[in-house]
């Protein structure tokens, strides 16, 4: 573990945002990918831990925040984009009920990236799975391949996009883990918006991060873990 810390220090020394980093470990966590001229680092793996026991049924705050941040219409027609959605589930045996948000799970081995003919779907070094819309030809094969139905296709021309979140007709899109915020050292809009703190965002690779500590101490699962995709989003209490 000491080695690990040393390595991280060394790495940080070489990057630009060093000055801001030494202040507190919490900031350091985000500082790594923030505005650095080296870009996303493979030493980071961004992830989320969702505590379903804190996720209130009927609460839609994360969805609303995502829509606002990323400029989605908020419509729920079959042709509307939904980057994050609330799912209400009920266990058939016993009837236990849960509510949870579902979005791109940012897999380590993402099927969408495997199937994309043009490498438009790709995984950043820090584990965030994105669609490069400059390359997307709109074939929708990734939507067929995603086990979480996390992706949407833009069915209509769009106007008035967020300058930080380009989106456009004829391409596929999904949760970006608010990459434009994460690169600034902020956390994703959904995590920010959750009043119950059910969404914990952080660096899974940093043993001292809050998320890594919690994953070590509480039981959490990956959805469709049988597929061995190793998603970066984990669920607690499922």
């Amino acid at each position, binding site marked *: 573990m000491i080695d690990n810390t040393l390595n991280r220090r060394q790495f940080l020394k070489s990057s630009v945002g060093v000055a801001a980093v030494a202040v507190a470990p919490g900031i350091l966590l985000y500082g790594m990918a923030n505005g650095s001229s080296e870009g996303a680092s493979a030493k980071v793996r961004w992830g989320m831990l969702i505590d379903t026991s804190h996720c209130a049924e009927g609460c839609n705050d994360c969805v609303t925040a995502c829509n606002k941040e990323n400029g989605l219409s908020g419509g729920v027609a079959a042709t509307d984009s939904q980057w994050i959605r609330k799912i209400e589930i009920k266990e058939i045996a016993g009837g236990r009920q849960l509510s949870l948000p579902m979005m791109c799970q940012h897999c380590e081995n993402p099927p969408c990236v495997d199937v994309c003919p043009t*490498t438009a779907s790709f995984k950043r070094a820090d584990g965030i799975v994105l669609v490069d819309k400059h390359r997307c030809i709109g074939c929708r094969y990734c939507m067929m391949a995603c086990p*979480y139905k996390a992706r949407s296709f833009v069915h209509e021309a769009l106007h008035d996009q967020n300058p930080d979140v380009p989106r456009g007709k004829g391409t596929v899109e999904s949760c970006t883990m608010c990459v434009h915020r994460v690169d600034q050292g902020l956390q994703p809009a959904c995590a920010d918006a959750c009043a119950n703190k059910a969404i914990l965002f952080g660096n899974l690779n940093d043993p001292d991060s809050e998320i890594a500590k919690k994953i070590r101490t509480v039981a959490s699962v990956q959805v469709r873990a049988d597929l061995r995709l190793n998603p970066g989003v984990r669920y607690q209490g499922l």
Partner: protein
Amino acid sequence: MYIHSAVLFRNRLFYALVALAGIVVLAGLYSVHLMEEHGHIITGMNNQIVWGIPHVFAIFLIVAASGVLNVSSIGSVFNKHAYKARAPLAGLLSIAMLGGGLTVLMLDLGRPDRLLVAATNFNPTSVFAWNIVLYSGMFGAVAVYLWTMMEGRMKPWSKPAGFFVFIWRFILTTGTGVIFSFLVARQAYGTAILPPMFIVISFAWGLAVFHIVQSAIYAWTNKVLDDYVQKRMKNLLGVFVIAALYFVVAYHLTNLYFARQSDFERFILSDGGIYPMLLWAGYVLIGNVLPLALIYLPGFGKSYHVNLASVLIILGGFSLLYVFIIGGQAFPLSIFPGFEVKSTFGDGAISLYYPSAPEILLGLGGVAVAFLITAVGIRMLDFVPHEDTKKFH
């Protein structure tokens, strides 16, 4: 004996048919224009049913394009003269249907203007990317094969060229099946039986298309198909249809045996509304039972019976693809096995799909492209089978 007015009529009919096909192509292009202008919102496709009618048409045409080459393979690889005489026509049909199918597939893209991007950014792990190579390679391979058959000096090369095409199309149809085989997440797909199933299905559909085109050409030129050839080709068609049915049955039986798949099978085989109806009435009855009766029952099996059977096989093929592609997506993805699920994004719910006019026109446009290539090809070059009946026996 030719009568002048009959020739004139036939000429006019030819141009009328070509013009009709041209209009259908234009209607398809206009649909594409609308889809580019408004986006896919004007189609019935949505975020749940991401592939629709255009893909049914495209995959049918591409699969049949591979299967029709069976006729040439039997000729050149297995040295059967009756089929050798038909190899050029089979090659032309293959190019025509491949062209039609690819046109539909490409024009349905969200950004068809970026095809160059697809050509310059190649993802080696993507079956789609492989297929781009396989499809364009197929054009080249079949074109060379046709050249070796039709150009006297190249004749010695026609056997190796035929063999190459034979192997290439196996890989190509495997690639088409693998598009679905690699979809691990969806109940309908993600099984290794799909590539061989697509290969055998391609034999049946390709030969059915070939039968119809061949009969049309023979009727047009007032020729009569030799009884021996007719009987052999008819029996081959029957065998292919049975083999294809076998694979479809095996696919569903395997699914039925897996408890985790039984809900999906119940949906496709009995509860799913349009899908079981299309499967049983469309594929099983129209696409298999009736054609097999027309081929094998005593008193049937005449040329026109086989033509009718071929039309039915094609209709059955479209039904099967509709059930496979659209039914496979309509059934909800199992994200939380053992849970009842609901959300605003169609989780746990059967997805609805109503094909719209533009996407149907796009699909028909692809068929019309295939027809145009075939019609013009036959008119310009010598694709009509010339047979030496003495060599049959």
